[in-house]
């Protein structure tokens, strides 16, 4: 389990992560969502031990990871760069990491390389961007660490490569209970691959939940009430949004269908329509409810 308790990271006095608390249980596929500069990469680097926190602790399985070689054997970090591996051929990459990670498996490496049809003796800087990223992913998987951190993992992969990589991850998750932490600014991707998601904004963890429970627990409500109702009539922390269009109220409310029905029953709605929401819609309204404007979090509308 990865634990962050009260973790703060400052760069030249500016906090990139501000008093973050996070628990990533073993075996989950954890997604880190946020726009650029939100702190995703910083978080990943803290978990991988590259950065040292300025406040708070970063623990892997109960031990601090910074400058702890033994614990770091359990973590492999794949960042969004490919340049540093350019001088290696796949064979050399294999030999390099083999000496550092005790659980490294030649068979896994060779097998995965075969799956993606990558040549073993060609320098990786001659590969396409997608092939480069695949090289690092199969290296990380071959190290057979308990935790795999991926920063913008699928960036640069074409759809075919994406599927192949996802399948590799599936195998690893199922075969040895790999815990993945994947950062992305793309919600669709996180939705596909992860089961838990945390949303970062300006160094804060705004939101941290099981995706499925997110979806099942928030609904769009369209209702009409006998009396003329306004926002003030519906006071509940679960209501994220209230809008009125003519006589129809548009409410965004947390809770499953039954809960919502129960809540609204006293108001005797004349008609009540409870609709599940897409993830994007959920995120937008959650943010609103927290006081953020949606476009603060997205970048040019890309994420959500």
């Amino acid at each position, binding site marked *: 389990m990865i634990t962050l308790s009260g973790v703060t990271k400052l760069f030249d006095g500016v906090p990139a992560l501000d008093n973050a608390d996070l628990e990533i249980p073993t*075996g*989950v*596929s954890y997604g880190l969502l946020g726009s650029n500069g939100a702190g995703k990469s910083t978080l990943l680097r803290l978990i991988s031990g590259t950065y040292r926190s300025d406040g708070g602790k970063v623990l892997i399985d109960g031990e601090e990871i910074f400058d702890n070689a033994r614990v770091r054997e359990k973590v492999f970090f794949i960042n969004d760069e490919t340049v540093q591996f350019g001088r290696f051929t796949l064979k050399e990459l294999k030999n390099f990491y083999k000496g550092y990670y005790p659980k490294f498996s030649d068979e896994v490496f060779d097998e995965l390389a075969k799956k993606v049809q990558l040549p073993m003796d060609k320098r990786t800087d001659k590969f396409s961007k997608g092939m480069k990223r695949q090289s690092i992913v199969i290296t990380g998987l071959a190290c057979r660490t308990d935790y795999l951190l991926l920063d913008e993992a699928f960036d640069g992969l074409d759809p075919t490569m994406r*599927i192949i990589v*996802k*399948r590799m991850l*599936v*195998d690893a*998750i*199922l075969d040895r209970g790999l815990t993945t932490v994947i950062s992305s600014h793309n919600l*669709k991707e996180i*939705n*596909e*691959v*992860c*089961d838990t998601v945390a949303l970062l904004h300006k160094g804060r963890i705004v939101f941290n939940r099981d*995706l*499925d429970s997110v*979806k*099942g627990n928030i609904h769009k409500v369209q209702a009409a009430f006998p009396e003329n109702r306004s926002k003030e009539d519906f006071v509940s922390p679960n209501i994220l949004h209230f809008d009125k269009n003519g006589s129809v109220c548009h409410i965004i409310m947390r809770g499953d269908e039954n809960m919502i029905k129960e809540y609204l029953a006293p108001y005797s709605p004349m*008609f*009540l329509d409870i*609709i*599940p*929401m*897409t*993830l994007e819609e959920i995120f937008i309204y959650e943010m609103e409810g927290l006081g953020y404007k949606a476009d603060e979090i997205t970048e040019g509308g890309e994420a959500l």
Partner: protein
Amino acid sequence: MSIDPQSRVPIYEQIYRGVTELAANKLLSPGEKLPSVRELSKRYSINPNTVAKAFGMLERDGIIYSVPGKGSFLSGGHEDVILSNACREFEEAAVKAHKSGLSQEKMIEIVKETGVRK
């Protein structure tokens, strides 16, 4: 079974429904082996934990049972569960329709038609 990761319906629910529909439509027979978690994850490009969760729910509800090392299988007594689920859902739909002003006669008509169409 079709799974849409982007749909409003949670993925595990889609899987759950998918399996029960297959069973109800006799596309899956009792004792037949379901695709493994792995296969489903890869086929639909979804998170295996989610699949596992759905399978867990199916197993909890008695619709499937799993044999360690062998996989998951449709259980024999699933019909009851499925039927009771279907009942519940039908009830809800009926209530809804009633509220919207659909007449009982119209409802019965629809039932007859859909039953035939099948």
